[in-house]
């Protein structure tokens, strides 16, 4: 088989060579000072995660903390171009079936054992295949084999071309797990889960339950001089207002995305030496919508859903409820990821049009139940604003509150009419978008499946074909899928969300990748 590097891989390989040759080009467009060593950073994270074992748990806070303990084969820059991490370089065969990763040599696990291709094969083929809810479907459906083809070379062979696989090698989806610790054990009860061992720039020190997780600099990290920061504390402060005060008093240096109520951000940003960024979420591109149970009643009527879409003032929600953060969403595919189309019908705020459509639809004045998403004050305010919009055009809505467990349970058993939800997109529609709309994913028990109950055979076929199509054919297929979905509205897309990170401006190169909120401390340094 003739192996040929694609252009993108070639560029990345060149960069990898530069890096391994010790020529560390730090953001050439930015002629700032040389990175400085030392310092301690305290970050607020919420809620306290169940575990830091990233292979077993993918909760947001777990990823934020453990994303610096574990590493994966690749990192991604903010336009989703792959960058080397544990894989130094990679080659993709020209039939797009064989991916060969050359691993970095001389990498040590935090307990001193050497990292090799065995760890990668064990992680991808054994450990994560068994336990990881996002890697499992990819590996089972798309991958023919994962083999060690050298001490520092791993070859992945696909059943048919599946371009999105190149976006699966981020640390939250495929963290590389130490084989010498997990092989042959019961993964979920392994004692080492409480003291995670990775290859990353930060090492686990201590977890003081209810207070903080302490990480320290990995002295043996393979990049010369890095990481720059000595100590990192992730602190758990349960109350949002107290977190904001702790930041203002200087106890906390960083309020991670989601740990600060969005209406506090403009006030904090106005203070001295406070920076706010929305970067570091590009791969996730959280996409929010009003989920509609399309199984029965007026909600099953497309005309009625279109009426709701015209009735809801999303610009207002963005500007007022979300303090100006985010972009109004017009498509199932986020404009921040691949294959988003601009050429689609737009539902601009138009209450008169909404009233006409309500009159045309099968809606006869019944009260709809709106389950308020239990993820903080902002969501409650948003639900209230949405109710007012809907009532303005004659749709009766009753807000119902619950907690996270109740909300998950009710979505998972399809026991709802309307609710907000937001899902990560993972860079490619085949990874993060199709799961919400294809009929095969109407499954009970999972709040992030197709809980709406939407089924359209043409959409199913388009998503299936697009996933495995050659690169050049994919845009047209996704364009067609977007057109159908925008007309039928299985959900009402609201906002492409921003979760701003609030931090002291002394922190430099703080967020540099498409998952930058998670793999922060390889590059970050403190101006002293």
């Amino acid at each position, binding site marked *: 088989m003739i192996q040929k590097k694609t252009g993108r891989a070639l560029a990345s390989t060149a960069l990898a060579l530069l890096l391994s040759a010790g020529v560390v080009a730090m953001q050439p467009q930015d002629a700032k000072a040389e990175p400085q060593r030392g310092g301690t950073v305290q970050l607020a994270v919420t*809620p306290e995660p169940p*575990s830091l074992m990233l292979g077993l748990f*993918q909760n947001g806070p777990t990823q934020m903390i453990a994303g610096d303990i574990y590493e994966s084969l690749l990192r991604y820059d903010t336009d989703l171009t792959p960058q080397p991490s544990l894989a130094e370089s990679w080659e993709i065969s020209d039939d797009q079936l064989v991916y060969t990763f050359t691993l970095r040599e001389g990498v040590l696990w935090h307990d001193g054992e050497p990292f090799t291709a065995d760890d990668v094969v064990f992680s991808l083929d054994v450990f994560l295949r068994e336990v990881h809810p996002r890697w499992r479907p990819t590996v089972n459906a798309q991958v023919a084999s994962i083999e060690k083809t050298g001490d520092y070379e791993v070859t992945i062979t696909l059943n048919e071309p599946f371009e999105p696989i190149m976006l699966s090698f981020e640390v939250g989806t495929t963290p590389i797990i130490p084989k010498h610790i997990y092989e042959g054990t019961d993964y*979920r009860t392994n004692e080492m889960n409480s003291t995670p061992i990775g290859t990353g720039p930060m090492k686990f020190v201590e977890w003081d339950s209810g207070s903080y997780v302490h990480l320290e600099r990995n002295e043996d990290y393979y990049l010369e001089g890095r990481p720059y920061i000595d100590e990192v504390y992730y602190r758990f402060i349960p109350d949002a207002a107290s977190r904001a005060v702790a930041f*203002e*008093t200087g106890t906390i240096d960083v309020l991670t995305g989601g740990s600060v109520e969005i209406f506090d951000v403009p006030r904090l940003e106005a203070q001295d030496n406070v920076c706010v960024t929305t970067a570091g979420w590009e791969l996730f591109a959280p996409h929010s919508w009003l989920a509609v149970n399309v199984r029965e009643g007026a909600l099953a009527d497309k005309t009625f859903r279109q009426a709701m879409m015209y009735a809801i003032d999303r610009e207002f929600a963005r500007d007022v409820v979300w303090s100006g953060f985010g972009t109004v969403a017009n498509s199932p595919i986020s404009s921040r990821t691949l294959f988003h189309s601009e050429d689609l019908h737009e539902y601009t705020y138009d209450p008169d049009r909404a009233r006409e459509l309500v009159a045309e639809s099968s809606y006869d004045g019944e009260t709809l139940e709106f389950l308020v998403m239990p993820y903080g004050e902002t969501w409650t305010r948003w639900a209230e604003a949405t109710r007012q919009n809907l009532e303005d055009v004659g749709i009766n809505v009753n807000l119902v509150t619950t907690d*996270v467990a109740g909300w998950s349970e009710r979505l998972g058993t399809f026991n709802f009419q309307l609710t907000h939800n937001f899902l990560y997109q993972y860079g490619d529609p085949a990874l993060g978008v199709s799961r919400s709309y294809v009929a095969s994913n109407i*499954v009970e028990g999972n*709040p992030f499946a197709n809980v709406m109950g939407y089924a359209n055979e043409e959409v199913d076929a388009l998503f299936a074909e697009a996933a495995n199509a050659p690169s050049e054919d994919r845009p047209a297929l996704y364009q067609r899928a977007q057109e159908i979905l925008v007309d039928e509205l299985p959900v009402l897309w609201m906002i492409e969300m921003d979760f701003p990170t609030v931090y002291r401006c002394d922190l430099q190169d703080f967020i540099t990748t498409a998952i930058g909120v998670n793999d922060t401390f390889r590059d970050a340094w403190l101006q002293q």
Partner: protein
Amino acid sequence: MPLLRFIAGRLVKGVIVLIAIATMNFFLIRAAPGDPASVLAGEAGAADEEFLRQLRQQFGLDQPITTQLWIYLTDIITLDLGFSYRQGRPVLDLILERLPATLLLTGAAFIFSLTLGIIFGILAARRAGKWSDSVITTGALFFYATPLFWIALMSQIIFALWLGWLPNTGFRTIGAGYTGLRYALDVGLHLILPATTLGLFFTALYTRMMRASMLEIAGSDFVKTARAKGVPEGRIVRRHIARNAILPVVTLAGLQAGQIVGGAVLTETVFGWPGIGRLMFEALSQRDYQVLLGVFFVSSAMVVLFNLITDVVYRVADPRIEVGR
């Protein structure tokens, strides 16, 4: 040995009551929608059926509920509180780990409110109708009526943010590596705001109770007699009035003491205090059944125990009080 027989009888009854409570709690908690696996899935933002099935199997939630109850009760009898689903650690460890912080907070608040409440109550009663009485009673009314979380947030904004005198969150300065006296001072500084906030409500209650009780007793015949005998005023207040007036306050203090082990959910949450109240509250929203049941069990055991102690102390202290059979 009627006392010993009494104690033995009460202990047996206590164990039966505890098992009944544990059983009731077990079903009560499961009446809430959702389970720990669905919460974990909800937080992860991704899950498939296999993920949920694996978690439920690991937690033993795939067993029939009667089997789960039986396992739980047999464990409880051997004082095994089980494992936290979420943290994968023994529940007893989690509780013991949080106990010192909770005892410190509730204990400090208890002493603070009892001392201040009695002093203010006496002062107010002694100067009934004067301006200092008005100041104290108005203050007491204010703190009695104001929601705790509002006081908590305002005190953070004033003392931590504006004045910068005190830390606003946590148990100690993290990363400072203090030891010895410096450590004690650091914890003490962190304790001031939460303990005061938690104590203010009870201070107000004690003040009002003490004042009313003092005024009532000040009018009774034995006080008039003492005064007629020419006993000095200070001695009358101390020995005759305050000592009798304090009884209702002590009853109330018993109520507050009952909360000492249970922690203070609201205060611990707003001040990021790593105590049992927060452990319980978080376990509730995460449906970490074992932790929640564990905290409930320990709290109810304490109540049963303290009731028994109180009854015994009554009998020893005042032989006129018969212990019931």
